[in-house]
């Protein structure tokens, strides 16, 4: 039992310790650093797997540390948090492998990997946070940990990007703080509880609650890149590819989306927020974000920027799934949390490979790249088709449930949003594929590096392939036990149980 009480803390501490161990490491101690990283990641994977099994069998993992009078730091592993924990742990492992390959013989690696692990620490903390204040704590930590990663390159552009990022995120954090404290003063507790703890609050406070909801969602929407708060995301593309992969697929954006999930389900409670009438506006914001993001993505020539805007639109699927009140939509949103992560990280890995191996940064330079780097482009293709929502890939599952949820909740317009978005996705992804596979390469690549036998170094090649495979399997074997889909069903039964 004691073990149960400390497991969440361990899981967080692992990567924290890794970070602290890496910081003082000298640049040239490559082997030590790599082994530290991967060792930590693996150990964490094992523990998380153990915990997953435990949670599935109704175990109760909770760590409580006194923090403030009346407020504890709570780390709890419930079904929802496990979804995110597993995602981030798994992808962290892959990203670490990738980053090792990506950053070899580039300066300041100790600093990079240190903050990298710190970032994951924060993400896991966000996932495991058992009340709003703990969440806030790790959320801000995440902001701080990602900043050095964004400015890592140390160029003027990256400094600007970092500044934008901070302006957005710290502002958002402030809003979140206000909302949290206000909430605390109204309700006297901040514990995440299934189906919310606010429905008991006196009716006279309901207007205040609406304002609080807006504050919280605005604070979280910054990271989740809801319009009009998405401005930092495309700019932060100057960061190295693993970082963008992490930002987009795992850590930052997802932390925002996850936070919104928490707020809607475990703070306000879905029924209660519906009764407050705040879900429909949220859904509308999400929908417009989806469309707007796709539209902007359509007109980016820089590959990573295009991906960034597609993230803007894709992450809002999650929010949309939450904002449509209904179990099926919830499944869609939750499952997209994982699926989008897997697919998007694939895409970013591939983009990174292109940049690293051939020096390709623009879509217009990509013609014929499929012949040069077939495997990378296969992974890329799978990722894009998944994003478009072609069956039976992962993206299809989430889209399927979003659509069904919308119909079930009697909000047919969402279906049209989805359809339009998939058309747009096709519009900005398929030309890339076409150019990559069917056009003839023009001249030679901007900056080609040869990696001997393989099309690029294995550390760069394997992660995208693995994630691409995942993207297929997650869709194909959706109904298998422990698949994100069945897991989100499990969660949904909890959230909507009568």
């Amino acid at each position, binding site marked *: 039992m004691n073990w149960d009480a400390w497991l969440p803390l361990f899981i967080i501490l692992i990567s924290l310790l890794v970070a602290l161990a890496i910081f003082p490491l000298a640049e040239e101690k490559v082997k030590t650093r790599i082994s530290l990283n991967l060792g930590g990641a693996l150990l964490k994977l094992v523990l998380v797997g153990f915990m997953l099994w435990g949670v599935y069998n109704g175990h109760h993992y909770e760590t409580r540390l006194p923090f403030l009078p009346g407020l504890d730091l709570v780390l709890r592993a419930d079904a929802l948090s496990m979804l995110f924990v597993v995602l981030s742990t798994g992808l962290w492992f892959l990203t670490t492998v990738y980053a090792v390959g990506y950053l070899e013989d580039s300066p300041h690696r100790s600093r990079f990997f240190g903050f990298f692990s710190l970032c994951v620490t924060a993400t896991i903390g966000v996932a495991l946070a058992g009340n709003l204040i703990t969440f806030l704590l790790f959320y801000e930590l995440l902001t701080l940990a990602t900043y050095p990663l964004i400015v890592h390159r140390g160029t003027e552009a990256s400094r600007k990007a970092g500044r934008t990022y901070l302006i957005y995120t710290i502002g958002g954090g402030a809003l979140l703080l206000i909302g949290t404290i206000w909430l605390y003063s109204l309700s006297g507790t901040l514990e995440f509880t299934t189906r919310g703890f606010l429905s008991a609050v006196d009716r006279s406070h309901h207007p205040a609650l609406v304002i609080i909801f807006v504050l919280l969602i605005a604070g979280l929407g910054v990271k989740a890149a809801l319009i009009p708060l998405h401005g930092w995301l495309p700019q932060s593309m100057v960061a190295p590819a693993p970082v963008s992969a992490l930002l987009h697929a795992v850590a930052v954006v997802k932390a925002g989306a996850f936070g919104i999930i928490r707020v809607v389900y475990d703070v306000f409670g879905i029924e209660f927020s519906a009764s407050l009438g705040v879900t429909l506006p949220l859904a509308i914001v999400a929908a417009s974000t989806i469309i707007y993001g796709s*539209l*902007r993505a*359509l*007109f980016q020539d820089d590959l990573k920027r295009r991906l960034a805007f597609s993230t803007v639109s894709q992450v809002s699927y999650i929010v949309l799934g939450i904002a449509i009140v209904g179990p099926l939509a919830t499944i869609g949103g939750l499952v997209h949390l994982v699926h989008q992560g897997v697919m998007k990280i694939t895409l970013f890995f591939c983009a990174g490979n292109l940049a690293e191996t051939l020096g390709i940064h623009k879509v217009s330079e990509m013609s014929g790249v499929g012949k040069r780097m077939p495997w990378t482009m296969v992974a890329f293709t799978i990722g894009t*088709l998944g994003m478009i*929502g*072609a*069956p*039976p890939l992962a993206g*299809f*599952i989430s*889209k*399927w449930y979003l*659509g*069904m949820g919308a*119909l*079930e909740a009697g909000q047919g317009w969402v*279906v049209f949003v989805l*359809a339009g978005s*998939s*058309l747009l996705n*096709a519009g900005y992804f*398929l030309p890339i594929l*076409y150019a990559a*596979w*069917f056009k003839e390469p023009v001249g030679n690549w901007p900056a080609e590096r040869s990696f001997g036998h393989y099309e690029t170094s294995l550390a760069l090649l394997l992660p995208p392939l693995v994630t691409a495979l995942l993207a297929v399997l997650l*869709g*194909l*074997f*959706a*109904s*298998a036990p422990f698949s994100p889909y069945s897991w989100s069903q499990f969660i949904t039964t909890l959230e909507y149980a009568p």
Partner: protein
Amino acid sequence: MNEILTTLLLLAVPLLPLLLVFPALRSRLPKAQFVSLLPAVIVVVTPVTFSAEFSWLLFGSALELNGFNRLLLAISIIVWVIALLRVSTEAATNNHMMTFLLLVMAGNFGAIVAADLLLFFSFTTLMGYAFYALLVTSDNTIRTVARVYLWLMIVADLLLFEVLLLLAVNNTNLNFASANTTMALSPLLDLSLWLVLLGFMLKAGIWPFHFWLSSAFRCVKPVWTILLAVVPVSVALLGLLRWLPLGEISSPVNGAIVQVIGVSTLLYTLISMLKMTGKNNKWPEHGIIFFMTGLFFTGLGTGLANAATWSIYEAWAYYYVAASGLVVLLVTLSIRIQLRQDKPVVQTLQSRDSTQNLEHFVVMLVTRVSKTGFYTLPGWRAWWLDMAKHFWSATCCWQSALDTSESKLSRWPVVITLFLLLGIVTVYFSCSC
């Protein structure tokens, strides 16, 4: 024959080609493309009704091989054998092409043996994308056509997707029988009916969506004409048979409309054929396809109009689809042999080609939109930034004012007067209690 073996065989029908798609595997086997046909052949020849449930697949799917689609499978096997024979020389050199061929094959077989809408849908999608790729790789003259085909297919998939959603909301079990009943009973019957019809009309190139097919026929090599005939078209027809709740509803109006479409397809075919024979005495083989589909639609209309009639010749519909595939195959072959040439009939598209018109329209649209995308939105953004800059400069001068006042604040007289004032005010306030 025991359960596992049948399941495996059935799975192998689409899966083996799918596996052999990987060049690494393919290079190990001699004549991989024919090997990939094997399970299908075995399945066809063994006289058992195969069926397999996969609860873990998607949301629980099933494969099945019963009387009807066995025939289809047989036909398409023949078609594939011939096609592969004819392209074998080319395919040996062109690795991409073989890959896509196998993908298409997998999709085709899968769609045939699929026993529920979702699986069928997935396989047709796979087939569609792969077929697009196949067309593009095969030769470049067809690129525009292929692109049109791709877009039409995506739209069609979206339509079908919506139908699936509509059905699944009411009943998550999507195997054909129950799905049909669900659709028949659903309040949105007409909507879903027409979504299905539209979707498959796009896929099968029924008039008025025929243009991609006709222009494709004009400018591809005959091998692909065979595939064109059999793969998308017949699968689409099969889809219609599978998806529509035929024999369960009888809606005269819809039936009539469908019949009209069918008839008009026939008329169009006749006219165009006459025109073309007038121009150059060549027999345009895609006419056959339009003929077939037209007839099929007429029949379909009748079936839709009246459940009873349908139940009479339901079986024949499947035979018809199968036969159509066969006939088209034979005709094309015969023409080819008669012409003794293996080149596209028309190397370049004619000027007034509907595909080009559509393409032109699309291009116009895209340019218009992209104008918005490239200029308008960034324009707004720039405007915002300007506003921000103005604001910032304003604050800047404000800040310099701050600096001056700060230096003022550091002079003794100012400070001390402030200081005294403060003292007095404090005293005053404390008096007030």
